[in-house]
């Protein structure tokens, strides 16, 4: 039964497309994480909860009768200020401390956010309806929800915009300079405090976009943020910091891997397989690193 995918080749196409579309969305979240990890050296455990909060913003405008797709514009704007505020309130106090402190702090933020969302939006699972319909391929044997295609398209669009912004704008250059060497950047007149705040804001805005897309493709619930944190953490670990193409490839790879693990190993091992892969990659990296050291000796 588990090898159904090899008997029906169309399933292979379906799985690949599903995986890639989902992976692009993950990559967007992971890119935000990689950005602020690279610049501020902070592992943000609350990443997934920022995503869900972004989703709830889109859901709220949907309840007001506005199409939830507008969420991909409104949600990042609000989330940017949420991120900025969060930086001024908490993150700036942990930014120069060791990694452990920042993990603890963001873990705390994650819990506070979950409870707040639960308090404001309730504990019910909710969905926003895009009514985008479905694209049928290969004589209806492969179906792609248009909402998923839309979400992948928007993710790519924002990713490209961000890359251009990072290259061309003054703030973008300041962010990259700070990431390379914060002290040198400061000496040369970059206001690193502002750069940090902006970076965290941009990360939150990316989460806002992803959240709005999740509200129309998947489901929202105050307590599901962690699974997005884990996935983006995994993508960043594989891709490395500050490398957008690698993040995109690694994101799509993860999406594909999840889908195929589902067909071949069984649905129950889908998430487990991701963790197994994470362990394998970490072991492999460690192995490579230890070889290098020996060589240096």
């Amino acid at each position, binding site marked *: 039964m588990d090898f159904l995918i090899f008997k029906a080749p169309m399933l292979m196409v379906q799985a690949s497309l599903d995986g890639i579309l*989902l992976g692009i969305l993950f990559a967007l979240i992971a890119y935000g994480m990689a950005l602020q990890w690279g610049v501020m050296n902070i592992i943000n455990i609350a990443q997934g909860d920022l995503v869900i909060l972004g989703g709830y913003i889109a859901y709220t405008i949907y309840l007001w009768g506005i199409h939830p797709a507008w969420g991909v514009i409104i949600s990042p704007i609000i989330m940017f200020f949420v991120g900025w505020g969060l930086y001024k309130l908490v993150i700036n106090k942990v930014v120069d401390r060791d990694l452990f402190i920042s993990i603890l702090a963001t873990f705390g933020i994650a819990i506070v956010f979950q409870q707040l969302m639960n308090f404001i939006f309730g*504990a*019910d*699972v909710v969905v926003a309806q895009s009514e985008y319909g479905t694209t049928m391929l290969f004589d209806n044997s492969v*179906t792609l929800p248009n909402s998923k295609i839309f979400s992948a398209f928007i993710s790519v669009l924002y990713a490209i915009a961000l890359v251009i912004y990072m290259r061309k704008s003054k703030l973008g250059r300041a962010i990259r300079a700070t990431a390379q060497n914060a002290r040198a950047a400061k000496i040369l007149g970059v206001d690193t405090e502002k750069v940090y705040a902006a970076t965290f804001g941009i990360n939150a805005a990316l989460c806002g976009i992803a959240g709005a897309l999740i509200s129309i493709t998947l*489901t929202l619930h105050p307590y599901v943020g962690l699974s997005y944190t884990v996935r983006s953490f995994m993508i960043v670990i594989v891709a490395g910091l500050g490398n957008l193409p690698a993040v995109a490839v690694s994101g799509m790879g993860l999406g594909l891997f999840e889908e195929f693990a589902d067909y071949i190993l069984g649905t129950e091992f*889908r998430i487990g397989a991701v963790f197994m892969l994470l362990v394998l990659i970490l072991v492999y990296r460690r192995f490579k690193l230890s070889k290098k050291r020996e060589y240096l000796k």
Partner: protein
Amino acid sequence: MNKIAKLFVTFISAITLALVSFTSSFAKVEGEYIVLGSAISLTGKYSSNGVHTQNGYNMAVDRINKMGGVEVQGKKYKFEIIYYDDESNPKRAAQLAERLIKQDGVHYMLGPYSSGLTKAIAPVTEKYKIPMVEANGASRSLFTKGYKYLFAVLSPANQYLEVAIDLAVEKNGGKGVKIAQAFEQDAFSQDVRLGILDAAKRTGSEIIIDDKLPKELNDMAATLAKVKAVKPDVLVVSGHTKGALTAIRQISEMKVDVPMLAMTHCDAAKLSKQHGKKSEFALCASQWHKNLSYKDKFFGSGKKYAKDFQKEFGYDPPYQSAESSAALLVFKDAFERANSFDRDAVRDALVDTEMQTFYGNIKFGPGGQNVAKPMILFQVRCKGDDCENRVVAPTKWASDKFYHPIPKWSERS
């Protein structure tokens, strides 16, 4: 200290001791109040259903108290409940149960929300021999552990969707059917799955897809793609509200055609409201529906209950509220038959419970589960954009005919 003062102190201590031993050998009965305790999820991920449960309890307490209360040994008593918020956390629930029993001296408990939390509390109530009537823990494993003080007014989880398989077989002319199923990996959903396995064996049906969904998962696309490829007669999905909402979203988006779709948690997920016409024809298991013809003297009928509940709390009662109200009726009945506050007498009276409530008949099996009430199935039906749940099985209460097979997506407007 002079002699009189010493005597006075001794006297006071003796009285205090006597009072303490009196309250512990009998029950937590304060003045005219019988005090019940409950740890309940008012915050955390079960908070909405926790509130439904609490509203159900409160509604019944008010009603019973207003209608004369509980008569024990010729004296009228009223119910009172001490609540603590368990934060949807099993560990916290167990601690709070301990606190209710040891610090607050509660001697009768009402259940929390969900199978998981009931499982956490049951060993505590069992240890202190505290009778607990629970209304929201349906997992089969609760009733196979030999608990003596646990009583559940609801049908166990394995019965949730058995009826649906019987219905599918009936529609197939008595021959076995091909079943595709996807269940979340948690105690409750896996119990529902066991029920389906039993039903499949009994009817000679074949299970062709048997997916277990990880708890964190909110994407069923792979399972549904398989369903499309193998074309089963029935698709069964259970994964709490998230599972129900995800399934309908992706079935409609991927245009998965199945003749019959059976699920749980449709009403908790507000399926017909959130997904509208996309959820039409989904078949849902439910413990209770307001249109059933059961009656009692406190709430009248289900319809009357729903009306009063709506007036009091501003929304239609989900079955979680109805079964919670029924738990109080069971306690009242047991106290009056025991005619005593002795815990073991009350426990024995609970064992012998056999009554009808607006929620259904209640009679406890050897494991404490309710064996007198069948599960019901309703089907989501829409008129224009207005969708509602109509009872289709068992036939005795069916208000509508079961619509089968579900029309193909290409034929649906």
